[in-house]
């Protein structure tokens, strides 16, 4: 059913929502307890967004909701009805590169600076980097390090991640 406000929807009834995911409008029926992360990974086969802890403690699930970075593991899909979601799969299509298959500058910079090893935290790091740049609060290396501290990289690629972000912020998109 399509929900406006009230009355309560009982636990057994899926709820109709609309999400724009990576530029594509999707009408979806979801259970209220389905997180945005599980919706993406298990229902829509958008497994680029990772589940590292499922509790907002690692940042691997970071996606952009209306351009803002959030932990999709702590986001109920039903509560984002009407939102625009960008996942790592959609980064390449952002901005003036829409429609092209070219990588987003931050994706290129991550490759160039070897800003990952196993790659599991990488989608979250990338979305978080784009979110950071959208926010516009971090400028210095120290500020980038602090603003990226919600994304754990157990392989320890931190210095390379900061190099990559600095590179893109300084217009170093190649």
């Amino acid at each position, binding site marked *: 059913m399509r929900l406006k406000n009230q009355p309560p929807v009982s636990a057994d009834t899926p709820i109709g929502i609309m999400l724009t995911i990576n530029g594509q409008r999707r009408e979806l029926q979801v259970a209220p307890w389905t997180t945005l992360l599980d919706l993406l990974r298990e229902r829509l086969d958008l497994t680029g967004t990772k589940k590292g802890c499922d509790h907002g403690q690692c940042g691997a699930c970071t996606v952009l909701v209306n351009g803002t970075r959030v932990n999709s593991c702590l986001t109920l899909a039903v509560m984002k009805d009407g939102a625009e979601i960008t996942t*790592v*799969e959609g980064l390449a299509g952002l901005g003036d590169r829409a429609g092209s298959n070219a990588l987003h500058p931050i994706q290129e910079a*991550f490759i160039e600076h*070897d800003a990952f090893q196993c790659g599991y935290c*990488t989608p979250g790091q990338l979305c978080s980097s784009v979110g950071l740049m959208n926010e516009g609060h971090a400028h210095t290396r120290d500020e980038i*390090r602090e603003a990226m501290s919600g994304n754990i990289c157990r392989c320890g*690629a931190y210095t390379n991640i900061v190099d990559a972000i600095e590179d893109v912020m300084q217009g170093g998109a190649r």
Partner: protein
Amino acid sequence: MTQTFSSTGRDTFVGTPRSRIDGPAKVTGLAKYAGEFAAPNLAYGYVVSSAIAKGRIAAIDATKAEAVPGVLKVLTHENRPRTAWRDKNFQDQVAPPGSPFRALYDDLIAFSGQPVALVVAEDFETARYAASLVHVTYAAQEPRTDLGALRGTAYDPPGKRQGIKPPPKPWGDADAAFDSAPVRVQGAYSLADEHHNPMEPHASTVVVEQDGTYTVYDKIQGVSNSHQYLTNVFGLKPDQVRVLNPYLGGGFGSGLRPQYQLFLAMLAAQELKRSVRVTLTRDQMWSFTYRSEALQTIALGAEPDGTLTALRHDAVQGTSQYEDYQEVVVNWSGVLYKCDNVALGYRLVKLDTPTPGDMRAPGAVTGVFAIETAMDELAYAIGMDPIALRLKNYAESDATAEGKPFGSKELRRCFALGAERFGWAKRKPEPRATREGRELVGWGVATGIWESMMMQSSAIATLTPDGRLTVGNSTGDIGTGTYTILTQIAADTLGLPMESVTTKLGDTRLPEAPVAGGSWTAASSGTAVMKACRTVGEQVFKLARAMEHSPLANVDFDRAVFADGRIAVAGDPGRSVALVEVLQAAGVDKVEAVEEAGPDKDFNQAYEAYTHSAIFAEVKVDEELGQVRVTRIVSAIAAGKILNPKTARSQILGGVVMGIGSALEEESMLDHRVGRFMNHNLGEYHVPVNADIYDIDVIFVDEEDKANPLGVKGLGEIGIVGTAAAITNAVFHATGKRVRHLPITVDKLL
């Protein structure tokens, strides 16, 4: 074969910095990990974990869970399908001696968090919800998990773990030498229990194919281990199971052994005759394998000139009740330093925890922290520069291996180059000598060491008439860059551009290779790939020579040069033919070879092989508040030939970061009353975040080594070893406080 890896004798790609070839897949989200492969009609398993550490399951009531619509099955010890039960069926390729854990085997609980049921449902959320409804009643017993309290029960493990050298017999008389030494230091040292916490939680997807065979995606550092485990435990024929794992979201040792989610996923798939995925939660990552705390004591005796006269290093380490996990903790002290009187001891204590396991540089992280901190203490006791003390006692041969020489050891150069880069000469030796505002600044140094190993490994190389070369084997790229270096090696061996090479890994249909661990993958798989490519080259060369009007007519293979996609004659570059032309002319659809590579027995008989490092750390410590910042690390590494300086540097960066975690943050806290790690999440188990990491400078010291044709010694572990000691020593230099028990949290510096 010769000492070079490429038949041209030139390195085009090997030795040059190359971006990861798996980079595009990883930055676009297309790289799939074990818990992400889709299958028709996939069911989801969710594990119910034991709330107690020791005792029995008195009753287990799954009726409420089974009543939830969408629940397919609740598997427990009471209703599980039969599998093999003997120890040997469950012993995987790297199992320590003992009786491996068998999930849902019976009602006995051996550790907190032990899986006691698997709820399988149509979707993840239903399985998770129903799992919360499984009601387990326990008959709990008092767990014993306090290593310190149980120290008196320490024993020498009767069965030795394969590949793990027990401590050597003592030489000289360490006790007497210590008692009569003019300078003496002794102390007790420990690291906290640590958990690997790769970012990807352990997961297995078992896909039931239409023909009844199984395709299994498992989080494992080498698919052949899971394959062997599944065939042994479930009585399957080798061709009934294919195990894949093209990408691994970090292992650090946690993925060496097949874990219980694999067993449970296969059990459920067989029972339900449908595909099943089981992914562990982050909390459940505390329910198997960890770096177990070791209580260590060290006693060093020396002459006033720094000559070591006595060295005692003892360690007591925890293991589980059911297996004797062992690692090399104390031997390093005897390898690193020349000393006439040495006694090394290593014993185990049984604890009610899961079996500990290899975690990045297992044993070395633990033991080298202790000896390298003790050496710093000795340097202060003597009043000698800590580098000078190490050089004074520099081992030219391995005393723990009857004095065999090292195949190569450029540790002196590591100290020299590292010290120069770090600015060590400017260091004021006395503690608390340098201040910046509210902070005390300290500089410390330590040595790192890890074994250089090679394992029996095979690989396939296939060249097709379109000019594409495909190579691979079953080992995994655990984030180390294996895809990339194998591509470099293959491209160089056959003189092709890297773009023409496809490297495939992590598939049991590929030739067998060992698990990716121990820093042996570059040497083992790299050599096997090189040999397979080399054989392909020889075959193509034969085809080329047999061509009509062949430009290579009457040329011997040792004059063949593979470059730019062609075979040319050495010294006569005008005579050449393209590989593609050869295959097309011969009318073959491919040229293929499978080759094996293994350790060089002659070399191993003559030499001992280790990688070494010198680590320099700068810390800034708030004098009043005890906050420590590691503002600078220089890690100078001697590890043979560096195949790819870019990915190699990242390996060291990663090791250093984990070393910083070990030194300052990481600690799994056991509540001994309940035998449970209480901070079992990434919010309360602290691993370094971006803000913790300042400058890290990596230096690769030239080192020629002949243990394998590539000249590589491995890089996965060496970056972490000794890092914590360098930091501890820097903290002492800054503050005058000697911390011997890691991590150095603020409370230890107040």
